[in-house]
């Protein structure tokens, strides 16, 4: 296989909180293949969004330490100079956010948003040229009457329409890496289905890779090539989406799939049907992060931190016992 | 008991910052000066000593004397009594009137509410000092008129906040429950509404003290507020300003006293607001 677009090695992120230093990411190892769509799944608080924030260089203000390595096309993004990072953003990396209601500035028209982004990518572009390119892109993302919409303010559009605008903004960048942070969670079910269809249809438009963050396994199965399951700031299992979802190796992945079948899609994505609580980020990890909630945990699970190990063709899982499990 | 503990805890939070502590210190000093002026003052504030006019600060006259040889320190201390009594009585009146009108506005019919709100808007349409001038033109200057004017100009401010507070509480489940259990309107207002809306209003009142002091001093400076020979900070500044060519000490000393007091009250009021609820009174 060709060299991946992004290779993350032992990425750790700590944040200062009122209760002390919290380990948000506890050593992530992950690769994002060129031209592939990676689904990032896990409960809320598992570190999916923080991982995306590291990839785009917008970690929250309370971040106290970040270490490890993110190789993006050979360039290490960890510790990258902010101005250099700002040059990557909007040219090679773009992001779609969860809540399209608040992600667009209410005082500027859709056109201003799109034109500013286009001119950032290509400063020589005239306003008229930028506007016509933006209008064409609005058509592509399925917005009817684009000339009227481009003069509209965000509050005049529906949630689904705003998310389409966000997608248009992202696609105008022609990014190598597109991060989509739960882009459909804030939308109702019908609109959600439409947006996922749109993303699937637009796959051909995007020459680069996409990271699709969701707590909804069904969407990931529908859209993604690969999947990485996160839990407590670690990746517990990763591999091609069909293989992982039909034959999960990690007990947590199994539990996640079982929940999905049980109760479809609980808002916030907290898995109540697995006994126990999500791990406290302030407490250090002494064994397997999932051991306290795992039905198969044995003594060594509590004392030894499992590494991600190859568990099949292109697959890896961080479980000491996946070979022995039924 | 619980209320007292809560008030003390709020005070502790308010004085936690340096600015809050400085403000609180000035607040306490001015209150003490106001309460015990006759004890603290070193001289009779009205005792003339024309031979000794414009005396520089000395052991006998800590801050020097004015154009009639009166002791400036003693006059400033007595000025605190006037400033505080005007401020507190005017704010108490405005607080009472504003709360009543605000609660009425929240409970009256749409039309009644609109009438009260327009009334507030009309009063607020007069810059306070300008309304004060119009009223003084009719009733003549006196301390009582100053109190009435300030109370009038402050009423809409309290009224709007009281109304907003009541509107957010009006349909709260606990009031709903009281109503279903058949509590009288008076019981709901006095037992449930008032205690719950008082916190923000009191903070607002504390933030208004420096504003009132400023209006009183401004009117007195114009000779249209507290009448001489009463020693208001405004009249002291006016006296000093008129004799600027003889000595700059009186005007500087009395202006500094006024500035320090308003600064202290502002710092304390803001610290208090931040300790109770950072969102109230932001528009001032």
């Amino acid at each position, binding site marked *: 296989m060709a060299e991946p677009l992004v290779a993350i090695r032992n990425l750790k992120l700590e944040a200062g909180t009122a209760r002390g230093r919290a380990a948000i990411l506890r050593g992530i190892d992950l690769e994002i293949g060129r031209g592939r769509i990676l689904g990032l799944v896990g409960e809320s608080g598992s570190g999916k969004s923080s991982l995306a924030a590291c990839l*785009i260089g*917008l970690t929250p203000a309370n971040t106290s330490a970040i270490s490890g390595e993110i190789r993006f096309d050979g360039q290490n993004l960890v510790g990258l100079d902010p101005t250099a990072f*700002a040059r990557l*953003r*909007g040219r090679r990396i*773009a*992001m779609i*956010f969860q*809540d399209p209601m*608040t*992600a*667009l*500035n*209410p*005082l*500027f028209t859709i056109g201003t948003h799109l034109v*500013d*982004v286009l001119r*950032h990518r290509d400063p020589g572009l005239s306003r008229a040229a930028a506007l016509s390119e933006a209008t064409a892109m609005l058509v592509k993302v399925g917005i009817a009457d684009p000339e*009227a919409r481009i003069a509209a*303010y965000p*509050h*005049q559009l529906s949630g689904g329409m705003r998310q389409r605008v966000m997608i248009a*903004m992202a696609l105008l*960048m022609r990014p190598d890496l597109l991060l989509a942070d739960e882009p459909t969670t804030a939308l109702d079910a019908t609109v959600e289905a439409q947006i996922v269809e749109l993303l699937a249809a637009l796959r051909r438009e995007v020459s680069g890779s996409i990271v699709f963050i969701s707590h909804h396994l069904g969407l990931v199965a529908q859209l993604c090539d690969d999947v990485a399951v996160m839990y407590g700031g670690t990746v517990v299992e990763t591999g091609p989406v069909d293989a992982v979802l039909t034959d999960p190796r990690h007990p947590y992945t199994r539990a996640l799939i079982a929940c999905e079948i049980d109760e479809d899609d609980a808002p916030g994505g907290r898995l109540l049907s697995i006994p126990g609580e999500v791990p406290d980020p302030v407490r250090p990890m002494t064994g397997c992060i999932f051991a306290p909630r795992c039905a198969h945990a044995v003594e060594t699970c509590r004392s030894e931190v499992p590494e991600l190990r190859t568990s099949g063709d292109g697959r890896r899982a961080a479980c000491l016992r996946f070979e022995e499990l039924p | 008991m619980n209320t007292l503990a809560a008030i003390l805890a709020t005070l502790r939070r308010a004085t936690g910052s340096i600015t809050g502590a400085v403000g609180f210190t000035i607040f306490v000093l001015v209150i003490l000066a106001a309460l015990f002026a006759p004890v603290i003052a070193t001289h009779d504030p009205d005792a003339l000593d024309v031979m000794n006019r414009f005396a520089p600060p000395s052991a006998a006259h800590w801050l020097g004397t004015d154009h009639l040889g009166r002791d400036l320190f003693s006059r400033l201390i007595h000025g605190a009594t006037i400033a505080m009594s005007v401020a507190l009585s005017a704010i108490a009146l405005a607080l009472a009137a504003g709360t009543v009108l605000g609660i009425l506005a929240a409970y009256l019919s749409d039309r009644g509410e609109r009438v009260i709100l*327009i*009334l507030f*808007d*009309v009063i*607020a*349409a*007069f*810059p*306070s*000092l*300008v*309304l004060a*001038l*119009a009223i*003084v*033109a*009719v009733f003549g200057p006196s301390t009582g008129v100053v109190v009435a004017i300030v109370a009038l100009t402050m009423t809409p401010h309290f009224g*709007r906040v009281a109304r907003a507070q009541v509107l957010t509480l009006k349909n709260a489940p606990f009031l709903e429950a009281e109503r279903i259990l058949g509590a009288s309107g008076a019981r709901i207002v006095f037992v449930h509404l008032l205690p719950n809306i008082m916190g923000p209003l009191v903070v607002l009142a504390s933030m208004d003290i420096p504003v009132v002091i400023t209006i009183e*001093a*401004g009117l007195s*400076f*114009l000779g249209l507020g507290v009448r001489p020979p009463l020693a208001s900070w405004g009249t002291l500044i006016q006296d000093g300003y008129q004799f*600027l060519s003889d000595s*700059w000490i009186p*005007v*500087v000393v009395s*202006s500094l006293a*006024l*500035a320090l007091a*308003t*600064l202290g009250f*502002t*710092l304390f009021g*803001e610290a208090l607001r931040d300790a109770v609820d950072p969102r109230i009174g932001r*528009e001032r």
Partner: protein
Amino acid sequence: MTRLFKDERLGYVASRLLTTVLIVFGAMVLLFALTALVPGDPAKSLLGPQASPELAKRFIAEMGLDQPLHVRLWRFFGAVLTGNLGVDVISGKPVVQLVASVLPYTVILTFSAIGLSVLIGVPLGIHAATHRGSASDTILAFVSVAFIAVPSFVIAIFLLLIFAIWLDWLPVLGTSRSGEFLDEARRMILPTLALAAGWIGFIARLVRSSMLEVLGEPYIRTARAYGLSERLITYKYALKNACIPTIAILGLGIGRLLGGAVLVEIVFARPGLGRLVYEAVSERNFPVVQGAVLVVVVLFVVVNLIVDLSYSAIDPRIRRSSGQGAGA
């Protein structure tokens, strides 16, 4: 959609206009009520006991004080609507003429103070917000409170003492007699500064806090995620949002500045509305007080209306239709 939007905005403008008219009428009733409330013989209490009987008679006739109340109110409305604010009882000149001759001084002073405070306050606020927690931020926070808390006439006295008397840099008092622009501009410096000081602090603080709030909004994160430069984000995307509360407060500011202008005009011995009212009050020349105060109120209310409407032009989201109460 666009059509509906236009109509909604029209409705907003209409409701604001209506409230403004109501407020002006209310202010007129209040001012009228003040004359009617005068205890005892109106001529005596308004003109003072030393007024001559002839003057009192003329005054009563001129003010129509011998008529029933509702007739007087009606006449007052009619007169004001036709631009007649009454007659100065002492000089016999029309009040409108007196007001018109000094109005420019006050308006120029007030608006240069507002302009100066925006010009200085906004950049200071932006600096403090983008350098949050720095030494300059802390110093600015304290200086702002000090400027806000200290009454403008005290600042005026100190400026006068320091720059005009001790340093002798600027002309002391009054306006330029020759009407020469440069001289008049130099004489405006201290009064403008005195009046603006509090508002510089106020606006700096307001801009700082609204900037900080806006910079934490998700749409700023979006702008960052698309690599827009910090300069573009700060000055285009964040500043426009942060301006809304600032503009909303400017309308109120005009009112407080008009009040402050009275004192500053007197400290610096400048002509103006404040001085006119003050002198009329001292002479108990009530028609002049009434007329001048009414002009101040109309000025204040109209500026507020303009501010409210411009605010609605900046913010495309349709605001609630309630008037000043919600906006103030």
